[in-house]
């Protein structure tokens, strides 16, 4: 494929004949006068919760010692009994008060098969960053959020967001992320606008997104 590579790069160089050869990419200025830190009068966590809810996700805020109870209730509401969790979900979050729920850990050593994932009723994970302005949750592939398939195949995703991980806007989120792990940005349950351009929730990804915000003003 060296032939194609050299030819494409050669065509590009020819096409850019009008660009002065001494110009470097930094010479070409990018005006960055847009906001990079957006303060919200009501506070980021409040705004975050509102905006997640706008996507027809369920949002609740709990104290740091109330996570397991909230998770138990969320799972019970959807009737989930077989529930996947990533390898590193904190023990205090996973200490469910309902003995009828079986937690299945997805680990690097013993990853669940696609069929196993499909047999799960729900998945419970942590999160990396929450974005207040857009109501977005970013999951970084790893022990807290799981690998990507874990939060994709099950129909219910219970996602725990720590208040301290909520940032005001997209630029603030981007600076917090590392790029050597896959990232999934989630804004509400799976949806489509393909029928008459109106948003309808519930296609291939989890049709139910339940967000539990831990700590912050109300803790």
């Amino acid at each position, binding site marked *: 494929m060296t032939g194609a590579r050299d030819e494409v790069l050669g065509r590009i160089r020819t096409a850019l004949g009008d660009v002065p050869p001494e110009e470097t990419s930094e010479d070409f200025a990018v005006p960055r006068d847009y906001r990079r830190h957006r303060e919200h009068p009501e506070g980021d966590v409040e705004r975050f919760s509102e905006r997640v809810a706008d996507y027809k996700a369920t949002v609740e805020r709990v104290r740091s010692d109330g996570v397991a109870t909230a998770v138990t209730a969320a799972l019970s509401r959807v009737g989930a009994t077989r529930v996947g969790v990533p390898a590193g979900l904190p023990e205090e979050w996973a200490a469910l008060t309902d003995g009828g729920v079986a937690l299945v850990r997805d680990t690097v050593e013993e990853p669940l098969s696609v069929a196993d994932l499909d047999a799960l009723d729900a998945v419970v994970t942590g999160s990396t960053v929450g974005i207040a302005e857009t109501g977005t949750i970013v999951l970084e592939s790893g022990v807290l959020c799981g690998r990507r398939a874990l939060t994709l195949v099950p129909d219910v995703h219970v996602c725990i967001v720590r208040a301290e991980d909520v940032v005001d806007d997209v630029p603030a989120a981007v*600076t917090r992320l590392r790029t050597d792990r896959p990232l999934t*940005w989630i804004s509400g349950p799976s949806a489509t606008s393909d029928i008459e351009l109106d948003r309808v929730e519930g296609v291939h990804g989890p049709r139910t997104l339940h967000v539990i915000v831990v700590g912050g003003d109300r803790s």
Partner: protein
Amino acid sequence: MSHTFVGMPAFPDAAKVALVDTQLRRNLAHATKVIRTKRNGVVGELDDWQELRLAGAAIKDRALRHLPDYLEQFEAAATAAGATVHWARDGDEANQLVAELVRQAGADEVVKVKSMATQEMGMNEALAEEGIAALETDLAELIVQLNDDLPSHILVPAIHRNRAEIREIFLREMPSAPPDLTDEPRMLAGAARQHLRRKFMSAKVGISGANFAVAETGTLVVVESEGNGRMCLTLPETLISVVGVEKIVPTFADLEVFLQLLPRSSTGERMNPYTSMWTGVTPGDGPQAVHIVLVDNGRTRALADPVGRQVLRCIRCSACLNFCPVYERTGGHAYGSVYPGPIGAVLNPLLNGVDAGPVEKSLPYASSLCGRCFEVCPVRIDIPDLLVHLRGKVVDSTRDRSVPTAEMLGMRAAAWTFDKPGRLSAVQRLAGLGRRMLGEQRTSLGPVPFGAASKWSRARDIPLPPKESFRQWWHRTRGKGGAA
């Protein structure tokens, strides 16, 4: 390789067919109004929208002006992260490459995430010829594919179908569709979920495009809604991403601009449901064979035009389609390409050349130059200006004819008249004379059967010229100057 549909008539003829399709007009008017309202709402929330547009345009320009460096940087970073980077001069080469990669993976079926690049190259058809079935998984693409239809919108290829029509297509073409399927969008989405689920679980190869390719890190980004993208990007063993060379952005931080511009411009949301970012191969997460095919396919032709180059900033949001009064009335098929609407009217001639065919020649004129497209473009592509620029190229392509076109003769006659005020004045006097001959009472004409006047007058009265032009009046009453 052509980006336009084979055998399509030029725009005015195709538009005529679309204009009398009342169902189409209704579907389009409804859908575009919905999306315009949503877009205006979420764009209005950001008080720095204009600054974001300026930054988005400049980042893309920076990437384009230094594209060779950024592409090499991207290639090195992606390779270091475990991806295999391939290059293709055109669509045919890319299609062959992908077919070979699919065969190497031991598959005869692939699941696809909606990708304009692969559509532009006719990849599904090319793979079919190689005995590989490509399954579109985006809901609108699925609707188009099931109905053996053509896409008519960049973002929502089935925008020309309403819910009732989609229900009929599903009942007819989708074996798993429940017989009691209603036209409730939620039900329709559920039927698609059911239909594709087994395919996702068993697919060996996924094919995607990319919205952005980050030079600094070798990261690819796919922006989507339904989760079909995540399925294709995550579950198969092999992932092949086909990426136009213009998708490069210099740094990961640059995404902070585009992830604000794109969702708000595109589906009119603060953020789309899912955005996936991956860098090469990640052990224990997702495909372990990751291929990236960087494709030219006409991009360098557009890049070589210093005015036209800005078209490569396009992030395929489709806001220009949604706001275009022409698109709203004709729909996408009239543009004869997978890239319809205002962006298609400039992108097709720039990728293929204005002399590639009748479609490319007619598209620069498929606009009233109202300027809405530029106003809403998140990366500030001055589409009206590009249209005018391309019209110049279309005209220039006819200049070497031994027999000039009728329009050329008319334009030259007009230019000759305007070259001297005395000539204009003479024409005006002649017109005034004609007017007097038609009589005092008459102020306008009804239908005229011949020439350009017939095109005007079929539905519009023609005003008659006055007996006296302004300059004659000025000369008569003010007596200044002498040219009149």
